[in-house]
């Protein structure tokens, strides 16, 4: 038995080492989320859904705000409207990603009506939240590199693709950067954009608007997230711009959204920066997500708003 155990242990060691090596090949091309589960705990975070994941560029924030926040390194920890609406799952995830030793961090919380709504007749029943079955809930480890758990449990394509991607670099439209920003590069010819926008709006109209309802629990978790981050730095609620047609749908879902968020901001003594009224200043890939170059300008505008806010002492601790 001893000899058998020795041989087996050697074999398992070889397997584990091989697997560890193959896993280390995973990068920003692997999938739109993986790298966010491998980076260490972070001192400054950008939170929200895919609008924030694509729309807010950490490198631009870091460059524009380095006078106010020296050595700022923001990290985009946004996912999708299904993975990371505000709620218990996202709250736990943020808790795991946050470097609790930080005191002068920067936290951008992107908000929109979908992020505080649930696709259910019982929008406050946390057992019905869709994100309960997805990677933020099923992954226990958020700061491991390579993250074997994530690769085994959440990565749908064969792991062999990690090897193939290294041999022949794929032409990906989506690349996840080391700072968590999801860079999307797709054709922006106006006819193509219009077609994508119509499709996206139709999808939201047919599959989301009839079923999503405002969730008081999610709003509570947004407030809870603010409370969590309050002792670690400055917090800003940001409503990102969208196409007119998407905005019209959001108005139908939650016409009182801005009032609610303004109230939340005042109660928590934080700023609510609302870009919805300047939505025409930006371009969108599909009416919902901001295009790359517009994202650079938007991020710069967010930084500018933050600088102004600091100048007028928005924040009182």
């Amino acid at each position, binding site marked *: 038995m001893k000899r*058998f155990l020795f041989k087996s242990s050697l074999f398992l060691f070889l*397997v584990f080492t*091989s697997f560890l090596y193959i896993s280390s090949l995973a990068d920003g091309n692997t999938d739109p989320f993986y790298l966010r589960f491998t980076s260490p705990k972070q001192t400054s975070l950008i939170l929200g859904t895919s609008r924030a994941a694509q729309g807010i560029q950490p490198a631009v924030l870091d460059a524009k705000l380095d006078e106010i926040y020296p050595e700022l390194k923001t990290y985009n920890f946004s996912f999708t409207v299904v993975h990371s609406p505000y709620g218990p799952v996202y709250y736990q995830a943020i808790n795991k990603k946050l470097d609790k030793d930080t005191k002068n961090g920067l936290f951008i919380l992107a908000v929109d009506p979908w992020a505080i709504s649930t696709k259910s007749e019982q929008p406050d029943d946390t057992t019905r939240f869709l994100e309960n079955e997805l990677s933020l809930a099923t992954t226990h480890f958020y700061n491991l590199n390579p993250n074997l*758990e994530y690769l085994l449990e959440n990565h749908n394509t064969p*792991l*062999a693709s990690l090897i193939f991607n290294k041999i022949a670099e794929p032409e990906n439209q989506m690349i996840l950067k080391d700072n968590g920003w999801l860079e999307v590069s797709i054709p922006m010819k106006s006819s193509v954009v219009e077609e994508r926008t119509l499709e996206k709006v139709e999808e939201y109209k047919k599959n989301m608007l009839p079923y999503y309802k405002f969730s008081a629990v999610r709003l509570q978790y947004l407030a809870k997230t603010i409370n969590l981050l309050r002792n670690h730095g400055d917090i800003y609620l940001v409503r990102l711009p969208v196409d007119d047609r998407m905005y019209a749908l959001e108005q139908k879902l939650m016409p009182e959204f801005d009032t609610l968020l303004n109230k939340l901001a005042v109660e928590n003594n934080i700023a609510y920066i609302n870009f919805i009224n300047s939505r025409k200043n930006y371009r969108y890939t599909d009416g919902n997500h901001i295009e790359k170059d517009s994202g650079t300008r938007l991020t710069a505008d967010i930084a500018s708003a933050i600088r102004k806010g600091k100048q007028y002492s928005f924040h009182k601790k």
Partner: protein
Amino acid sequence: MLFNSFEFLLFFPIVTILYFLLPHKFRWFHLLAASCIFYMYFVPVYILILFFTIIIDYIAGIVIENAQGAKRKWYLIISLGANIGVLAIFKYYNFFIDNINDFFNLTSEASLPLLTILLPIGLSFHTFQAMSYTIEVYRGNHPAERHFGIYSLYVMFYPQLVAGPIERPQNVLHQFHERKYFDYHNAVWGLRLILWGMFKKVVIADRLSLFTNPVFNDPQDYPGTTILIAAIFFAFQIFCDFSGYSDIALGTARVMGFHLMTNFNKPYHARSISEFWKRWHISLSTWFKDYLYISLGGNRVTLPRAYFNLFLVFIISGFWHGANWTFIIWGALHGFYSIFALVTKDTRNRINKALGLSKVQWLDNTLNVLIVFALVTISWIFFRANNVQDAFYMIQKLRSIPGELVHMLSTRQFAQLNFPVYTPYVLLNFALIAFLELSHVLQIKYDLADKFSERPGYFRWSAYFLGVLAIFLIGVFEKQQFIYFQF
């Protein structure tokens, strides 16, 4: 816990190593405790249901053995009643209530209440295994087990607790009394079986499910050709899922020196429906044959009655699989296939002779295998479909395949197939199925397992390494539960 989980990767070696380190007299307790932990990983409180039936069956076994006359029968009825009662409440109550409510068109206020409880995992398996014990004691084929712990272990032995094979007391009970020593040969065979089972489950079955699930869940979104591919994929998915689980169960037990019964024997190589049922889920089909079909009279009755018995057994077998009309129809289809085969046997033989097929054995066999596979695959559509309407829709959609193929080939527009996964993965699926069948053919022709054992050490270890690597590189690790767990 699932076999294809990180927790089991830790659980199995710890339990096995401790098993061999412990003195023999404590081993039953160790295995029983491990089995309790294994079962309680799902819904802990349901272990009370298990112990409820264990206590009843344990007492019943002893009383049946000691009693005379009618008392023996009464205790058998109590034991069977307790097991079937548990099944009826947890698995079938809602089905009957739903159908009563629908039949009488009862409104939500007037409708009979449903139970909101989860189905205890493996319920159908361990109740049937428990029932086989009391029946065998009643028939005098096996003495009652006096050791409560050993009897509990018979019901709860973790490798086969949740999805079989459904064992007989003659095969298994004595093994729990025997002193087991670590045997290198058993360990190697067991681990090989586990590796092969994992490959079938994680690489083949779960990869096929990425295609079949979207198609079966929304069949109206797919053309007939894709539905046919999904049906074929599902045939192999359920085989690999279930036989993979069985292999892992057998391998896990074998490492510790326990021999469980083979549950699958290349079922898609069957040349008739009756042969299919001698190769598929052997432990269940023999259970139904020995305890239901023969008890009803089997074929020792008039022909119409024999056909009725056969049909009834298949209906009940379908119902065993799930509380849904789709499973009942699946069972009924197999009943119909079996009866049709019996009724038309002479006619078919005459046709074969007239066509000269009986002289070309390989052609005759191949045709029979393909026909049986086609019939079984059609029945699997009912088995997997979410409801009867979907199943009939899918069957009906198959008629449009010729037109679709002509259109696609003439216009070269294959995007209409609307595959739910990337086309390379569809090709990968076909390649995996081809690999599986090739291994079956080689096993028949060359006794692959023995030939493999004779190869040099570097060859075997390289093969193990590649097998494990293949599981990691091509496998699907999202928590895909074994299909038969829901039974």
